[in-house]
C-alpha cells in the first residue's frame, strides 16, 4: 500500500502543479510550476518501474528544457504571462473543449476492458533499453540524432544576430529592423 500512497502523492503533485502552469498569470511562476509537474511525472515513471526514464526525465527535461524555458522568459523580458486583459471569450470555449476532451478520454479509459497482464516486481530496464536502442530501434535512434543536429543548427541560425548582407528577408524589411533596435 505504500506504493499506492507514493503514486497518489506524485499524481497529486503532477496535476496540481500542472494546474498552476495553466492558471498562473506570471510566466516565471508557470515555468517553475512546470518544473514540479515534470518532476511528478518522473516520479510516476519510477513508480511504473521505468527507472532509466525517470532519470532521463529529471535530467533532460528539468535540467535542460526548463533551463531553456527560463532563459527564454528572461530574455523576452516580459514577466507577465498575459499583459492584456484575459477575456473569457477564449477561456470558456477552451475550457469546455478541454473538459470534453478529458471526459472523452476518461470514458474510454473507464469503458474499455484493458487486456492486463499480471505485473511482477519491476526490473531494471537500462540494459534492455540500451540493447533495444542499438538493435531494433537503431534507425529511429540515428534519425533522432539527426533531428537534434538539425534543431541545433536551426536554432542557432534563428537566434543569430542579424547579418543583413546574407539575410535578404531582413534586408527587405527595414521597418522590422527598426523594431528590433528599440
Amino acid at each position, binding site marked *: 500500500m505504500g506504493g499506492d500512497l507514493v503514486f497518489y502523492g506524485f499524481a497529486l503533485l503532477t496535476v496540481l502543479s500542472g*494546474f498552476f502552469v495553466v492558471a498562473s498569470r506570471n*510566466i516565471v511562476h508557470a515555468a517553475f510550476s512546470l518544473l514540479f509537474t515534470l518532476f511528478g511525472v518522473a516520479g510516476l515513471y519510477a513508480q511504473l518501474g521505468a527507472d532509466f526514464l525517470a532519470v532521463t526525465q529529471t535530467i533532460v527535461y528539468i535540467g535542460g528544457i526548463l533551463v531553456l524555458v527560463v532563459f527564454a522568459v528572461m530574455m523576452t523580458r516580459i514577466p507577465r504571462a498575459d499583459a492584456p486583459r484575459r477575456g473569457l471569450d477564449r477561456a470558456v470555449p477552451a475550457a469546455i473543449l478541454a473538459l470534453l476532451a478529458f471526459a472523452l478520454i476518461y470514458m474510454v479509459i473507464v469503458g474499455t476492458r484493458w487486456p492486463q497482464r499480471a505485473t511482477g516486481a519491476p526490473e531494471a530496464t537500462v540494459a534492455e533499453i540500451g540493447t533495444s536502442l542499438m538493435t531494433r530501434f537503431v534507425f529511429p535512434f540515428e534519425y533522432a540524432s539527426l533531428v537534434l543536429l538539425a534543431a541545433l543548427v536551426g536554432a542557432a541560425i534563428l537566434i543569430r544576430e542579424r547579418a543583413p548582407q546574407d539575410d535578404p528577408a531582413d534586408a527587405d524589411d527595414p521597418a522590422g529592423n527598426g523594431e528590433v533596435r528599440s
Partner: protein
Amino acid sequence: MTAGLEHYLTVSALLFGLGLYAVLTRRNAVALLMGVELILNAASLNFVAFARFVDGGVDGHIVAIFVIVLAAAEAAVALAIVLAMFRNFGTVNVDSVNRLKR
C-alpha cells in the same frame, strides 16, 4: 485501491486536458510551449503505463525517450523562434504576430 493502469491513464488524461487548455488560451508563446510540454508528458506517461501493464517490454519506454528527445529539439527551435519573434515584433503575443494576414 491499488494504483492500476486506469489511474495512470487518468492522470495522463488530466495532464492532457490541462495542456490543451493552455495551448488554446495562452497568448504568450512561451506559455503556449509549456502547454505543449504538458501534452507530450501526458502522452509519454500513457506509453510507459501501457508498457508496464499491458506490453511488459521496454518499447513504451523507448518511445518516451524519443518523445523527450524530440521535445528537447522542439523546445530549442521553438524558443529560438520566440526570441526571433520578440526581436522582430517586440512581443511574444502570438495574436499580434499576424503580418502574413495583412
